[in-house]
């Protein structure tokens, strides 16, 4: 008992420290070597002797670090919410077709607009970005509504998962058709968007992004009681005073909004949303989502920072697409969880 309490009280400070170290490494490491005291200097707002270093840090590494932090947090929490809601350890934003919905929405805007109105959206600057974000949100929520409808009607988690995967295929094929008839520039933009990246934003927009991902992630703590009860099954939850339909709607809204925001700004980031909840459940043996959400926040941010770091390992000329790194980290985590489950069941 005592050791569990001790573990609980130590865990969060330790993981926050770990997170800070990762963030610092993200700032300090990169293809250009910047002395550590200069990094500290520049981040603290002092003038630096080297204007290039200052530019690299403030225009590239700092926004990347902030965006990775926010995106990882949001995806970790969204994945946890989905896994609990659907009571399925393999649920996650991308598996359920939510990011496919986003891709479809973005596809429509980026690819179709050029056809219909005859201009490329990427030339619109801030308004173009806004349109992409709105399209991404719209696509994600349309899929969410569909998934929710199906889960209400059919009920089985497996069927919901299959429908999610099917929606993914469907949106891919529609996007394929759109690509075929689109301007080359738009297709290129779309492909780049689809590779996912933490480095698309200026520092101002990175702060905005951090605000609209981190705040809802932390607000998800208010869903923890609902999530705890939902994990017991609908009947027990209802018997313990939970309004199931409202709780389910709120959980899906929260997870969907987080996924949609991240997808809109960074493109579809895979595997973080699925792998982080397992890590969160692994580090503290509890079913209480008050702790699990905290864990998912910290570990999600840490995982994204780690992936971002690996994507631009020192010594490499260019950055890897972030999704290849997340899959590299995420897939082993998910496989190990399945492996462990198999042992537990037999």
């Amino acid at each position, binding site marked *: 008992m005592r050791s569990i309490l001790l573990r609980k009280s130590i865990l969060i400070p330790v993981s926050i420290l770990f997170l800070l170290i990762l963030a610092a490494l993200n700032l300090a490491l990169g293809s250009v070597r910047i002395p550590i005291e200069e990094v500290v200097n520049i981040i603290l707002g002092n003038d630096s002797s080297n204007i290039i270093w200052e530019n690299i840090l403030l225009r590239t590494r700092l926004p990347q670090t902030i965006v990775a932090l926010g995106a990882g947090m949001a995806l970790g929490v969204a994945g946890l919410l989905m896994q609990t809601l659907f009571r399925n350890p393999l649920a996650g934003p991308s598996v359920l077709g939510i990011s496919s919905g986003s891709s479809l929405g973005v596809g429509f805007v980026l690819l179709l607009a050029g056809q219909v109105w005859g201009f490329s959206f990427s030339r619109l600057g801030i308004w173009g970005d806004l349109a992409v974000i709105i399209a991404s949100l719209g696509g994600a929520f349309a899929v969410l509504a569909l998934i929710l409808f199906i889960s209400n009607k059919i009920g089985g988690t497996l069927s919901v998962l299959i429908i999610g995967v099917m929606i993914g295929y469907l949106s891919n094929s529609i996007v394929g058709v759109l690509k075929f008839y689109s301007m080359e520039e738009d297709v290129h933009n779309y492909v780049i968007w689809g590779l996912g990246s933490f480095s698309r934003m200026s520092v101002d927009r990175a702060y905005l992004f951090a605000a609209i991902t981190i705040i809802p992630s932390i607000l998800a*703590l*208010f869903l*923890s*009681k609902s999530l705890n009860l939902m994990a*017991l099954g609908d*009947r027990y939850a209802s*018997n313990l005073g939970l309004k*199931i339909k409202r709780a389910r709607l709120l959980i899906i809204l929260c997870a969907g909004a987080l996924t949609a925001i991240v997808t809109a700004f960074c493109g579809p980031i895979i595997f973080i949303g699925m792998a982080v909840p397992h890590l969160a*459940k692994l580090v503290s043996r*509890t079913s209480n989502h008050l702790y699990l959400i905290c864990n998912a926040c910290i570990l999600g941010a840490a995982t994204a920072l780690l992936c971002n770091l690996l994507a631009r390992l020192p010594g490499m000329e260019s950055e890897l697409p972030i999704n290849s790194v997340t899959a590299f980290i995420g897939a082993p985590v998910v496989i190990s969880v399945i492996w462990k489950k198999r042992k537990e069941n037999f």
Partner: protein
Amino acid sequence: MNISLLQIQNLIIGYGSKAIADKLSAVIPSGELICLLGSNGTGKSTLIRSICGFQPVLGGNVLIDKFDVHTLSERELSKQISVVLTDRVVVPNASVEELVGYGRSPYTGMLGRMNTDDKAIVLNAMIECGIVHKRDCLLTSLSDGERQKAFIAKALAQDTPLIILDEPTAFLDLPARVEIMQLLRNIANTSGKSILMSTHDLDLALQLSDRLWLLQNGGSLITGSPEDLLLRNAFQSMFQHKGIVFDNKTGLFKVKHTQSTQVAVKGHGFEYVLLRRALARKGISITKAYSYDSNRIEVINDSKNPFSIYLDDECIVSEESIEAFIKQVLLMQKLLVEKKRSCFLS
């Protein structure tokens, strides 16, 4: 003590427009353990779900404390009725203490944090259910009986005047079934809470419950104390089935053997009863041996070889064990049949 806590009036239960049972009326007085009995398909689970408010009724009322269960909000109902369901819940990483703690949900705030009172109630519930030594264990590591105790502790922590359990003893072995039933009996006695449970364990229900609800095949409900129902011969009609007879005196079901032959037995007492049972299995019924029965079995209690066969008033075999003796009896019968046949032929 005998204030009625829950009343069902002219209740019609079923799905859609198809009624399974109608005109059900019964009361649950305070502080009583009530067992709901009925063979499969009579609608026990449907009745339980209708009373809990999980499923709409087709007509009639379920009144708890003068309020209709189906008009109360989840929150209000959660303070009146707690449930233990047959749903097999797999909550990853949930410890016993956490599960029991979720029982306090109707009383906790937004984040579900428990105050010292809540924690004391949870501890007491675990102590009362004899599961406190497993408080830190994961639910998935418990035996079926222990898990059932944990869920009963959850229902106790919910602190409702009525606890409803849907077949809490199914899937348990006999000692665990008895233990769970006695636990529920104790809760009803000491806390003044009423308990309604559905079960197939008629023998335990007859011994431990204050009142039985018998759901008949035709869809009607007979209620009363076990003894009154025995007096009214209510069980015969309920489990009408070939090969089963209900013994009103013992309150037990007996397998009805098809008896083909008879044998005369002299004796009484425990050994006699056991022998009768063993012979019944072989299709041999017993008649009382009169003095003129020259072929007979004699049972002499407390002797070294209590079981003997007499042919023409002569003891031909004595046995200590019933198994060996039964073989001799079967031989004897063959012999007698052949003897009869040879008499007839000559």
